[in-house]
């Protein structure tokens, strides 16, 4: 019991943020949008509110005129699971998803008129989950909307800026793309943990097409990641070692990789909900706090009476 309580307070974070980015455009890249939306759905289900999620979708698949079932994005064939849902808030969409906007969101250097829903307002007690998906034909970069790229060096530098500006406590980086492991090779800031769907030299493959919609619905790694996350609930005690085992080579065809050398804690002690969920910590105090009289005077009496019972 003591150990559990100790573990509850040991991670040191007080709030959770998520930045979920889909970088590819055009209808045949439906699966990348489905990937991002399925992680969005899991993260919302486990408690992170929309105000703490920055969702960037480079193209609109749900209301695309080629979509035979408008306002839906499916992740399983035979249209079993609609990951788009009824209550979705996309913060950056269409042409707004650029490398510059992504880096500005991470580092916080946005123009002053940017609304709050488009900002990553994290502090040094925030645990941030960053999920990227898209295409990359060679190692070392990720393509944004087929017209520009972000390189692994830029990404590492952006994370270092975040560390020096104290914008995160711990950061989990997941990428689902071909040769994804090349994207986290260059990280050098502390408290970073990274997962990728494939090693350098390997391609990440897509899972299954749906004949009614006509395109592949999900990528393999995120498909099995979604299956794994569906079993997680807010009080779950699954830890990162379970996450590293998601999608072995037999299911994924590519070999997922991970990197934990920059992370200070042991991955076995890190709960999945530290990053994917938003577990609020409440401290209960037994003493009365004097605010300003006389309005709170009666409340003070009530608290005293309650405590004395």
């Amino acid at each position, binding site marked *: 019991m003591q150990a559990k309580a100790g573990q509850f307070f040991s991670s040191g974070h007080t709030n959770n943020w998520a930045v979920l980015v889909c970088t590819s455009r055009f209808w045949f890249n439906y699966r990348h949008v489905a990937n991002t939306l399925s992680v969005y759905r899991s993260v919302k289900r486990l408690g992170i509110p929309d105000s703490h999620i920055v969702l960037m979708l480079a193209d609109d698949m749900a*209301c695309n005129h080629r979509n035979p079932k408008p306002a839906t994005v499916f992740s399983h064939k035979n249209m079993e699971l609609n990951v788009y849902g*009824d209550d979705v*808030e996309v913060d950056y969409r269409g042409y707004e998803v650029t490398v510059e906007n992504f880096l500005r969101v991470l580092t916080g250097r946005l123009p002053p008129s940017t609304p709050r829903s488009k900002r990553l307002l994290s502090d040094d007690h925030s645990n941030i989950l960053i999920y990227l998906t898209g295409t990359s034909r060679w190692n070392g970069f990720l393509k944004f909307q087929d017209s520009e790229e972000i390189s692994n060096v830029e990404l590492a530098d952006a994370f270092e800026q975040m560390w020096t500006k104290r914008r995160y406590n711990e950061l989990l980086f997941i990428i689902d793309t071909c040769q994804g492991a090349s994207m986290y090779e260059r990280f050098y800031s502390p408290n970073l943990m990274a997962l990728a769907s494939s090693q350098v030299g390997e391609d990440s493959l897509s899972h299954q097409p749906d004949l009614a919609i006509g395109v592949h619905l999900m990528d393999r790694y995120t498909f099995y990641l979604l299956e794994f996350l569906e079993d997680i609930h807010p009080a779950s005690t699954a830890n990162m070692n379970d996450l590293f085992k998601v999608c072995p080579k037999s299911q994924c065809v590519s070999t997922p990789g991970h990197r934990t050398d920059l992370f200070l804690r042991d991955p076995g002690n890190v709960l999945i909900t530290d990053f994917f969920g938003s577990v609020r910590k409440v401290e209960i105090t037994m003493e009365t706090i004097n605010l300003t009289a006389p309005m709170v005077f009666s409340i003070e009496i009530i608290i005293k009476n309650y405590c004395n019972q």
Partner: protein
Amino acid sequence: MAAHRCNIFMLVFVLCGLTYVFVRADIEDTNHVKDAESVAVDIAPKANIGASLRSTKTEDQTQAAEEERQWEAETNPADAPSDNKADHVHDTMQNLDSRPAPYAKDQTQEAAEEERQWEATEVKEADRVPDTMQTPDVPPLTPAKDQFQEELVIRPLHSGDIYASFQFRTMWDTDFLRGSKVSHYRLFPKSLGQVISKFSVRELHISFTQGYWRTMQWGQPFLPSPPGAELWVWFQDTVTDVDGAWKELTNVLSGIFCASLNFIDSTNTVQPSASFKPLGLGNVTDQRFLRYAVLPREIVCTENLTPWKKLLPCGSKAGLAVLMKSEKLFHSSFHSQALHFRPVCQDWKCKSTVWELRQTLNVVFDLHTSGQGKREWSLFKMFSRTVTEACPLASSSKVYVDVTDNPQGELFELSPTTPLLSQAVVLGDRRTYSVYDLTNQATFGQTRSLNMLLRWRAAESGDMLRPLLHGERYVAGYGLQTGEIHTLMYNNHPYRAFPVLLLDTVPWYLRLYIHTLTVTSKGRDNKPSYIHYQPSKDRLRPHLLEMLVQLPPNSVTEVTMQFERALLKWTEYTPDPNHGFYVGSSVISALVPSVVAMDTNSTRECPLFSSFFPCKEESSYFMRVYTEPLLVNLPTPDFSMPYNVICLTCTVVAVGYGSLYNLLTRTFQVEEPSPGLAKRLANIIRRLRGVPLL
């Protein structure tokens, strides 16, 4: 001591008595407030339009249209007695919205001639008016400072499709402009109220539309909107930096509605000089405070609908908003959601102004894609939901079904039947509606849910009233250098000509040649009486063209302009440049004379001096028509990787390898200049002699 205790006892008794009296009065107070319907009146903006058209030197308004002030008012139902009245009471409609007033109607005269299909309706509100008389010692009641009304209008279209229009109206008597901030919000959404007071907005109109409204097949919409996103705002005259406020406002709205409104900047914002006059009250018409922008490429999807629904007082939990499910709403031919904010009169006396927020959602469901093909519509088929209750915060919640084409029930059958009927003049046409009042529990029947069913009997449908004004636009020409924009305006009125105001906003990369502007009607040149043209500046400002054109009756007017396409810098292309670039819709605004609503009934008792001109009702109504947006291809370089790689590689090979090869393999030889003629002759002689040459 005893007296002291007695005094305290008396005091307590008096206090209890007073408390009882006040509590009772409070209960009756709230009862009265719930029952009395405060009537909201929208003053027609036609007075403003008339002024603007007058100022732009038109002489073609009919006398009747100009001389009458054309204020519309809905008479207070509390004043109208609920007994049988001999004459009909018609609601005159405000031009822009077609919300028919829930009105008492007695058609006992007509019943004698027709078959019994119509029933006399009682004015429910009038029954409750005497309540105020019962408690004379209650202090005079202040009406509720804010109120909310919701309605749904269902109109079957002649093509077999069905048109549903939701309107939610919140009216609030507050002052956004005073120094102290408004802090207590009840029905009015707080996020919007804060935006309005921060940026000193007087009127705000924003719409998100997917699809194009087909006027010739569907008739006129209640509230027109162009494809994409459209935003136009009138700021208060206290704003000093309108451009700065506009930029910040668009960014804030993009965060609220999850749309890319932050792409609105000076390259697509214009300041119309004659169109888009204020739709609410106010006499400020300095166009410096007006900004208009349209984003034709903007997509509408669930992420825009969700925050829009969150602005409603009941959200999507109760009332008519439960019907708005995205999977059905976006599976339609046309979907448009809009928000309109403006100041209006509180009642027909117009002693004070209130702020009105209208949220509207128009959707047209297609007959064939909704399955089955059989012509039958129900609420469940359209929305996959039924209505179970009215929004508790709404003072009125009604569903109207347009039954004008079905007076005897021969065309389609409407179930469940309802005794309430209402007539209204909307868009120049007199329409009849069956009304379902959701605040009345009896409407829901045994099943506690309302699912209207319209089942068609006859295969063919009647004639549709031909829309009087219609617009089309297309690009002509070939190649990627030049082109021509053609705008066609159809006037389908059989004998009346009327002027229209055409507003065109063209991006800077289509360089218009205004000297090639021609306006022709019926083969002849038609000179516009007012032209306002603002040329574009590259990368700063778009073209703005506004013209007042007189459309002859029963004719097509064609406006043509030539343009040249510009070559953009390579960073200015979108990630998918081969899709093309959009040009926003043209806006055609007009006061259209109505054919149907003209009162030609000469048997009515009317003095001769007032009955010469067609009068009594709307003889013209305000209409705005949007044309299609254009999709134009600009000369696009090939951005694809193989092409660029080949270019670069060949350049490197030619320049780099070529010079390297030369450096490595070139040898230099000294060459002497050729000797003169004398020396050459001397060398020939010396060679002959065998002596060494010079």
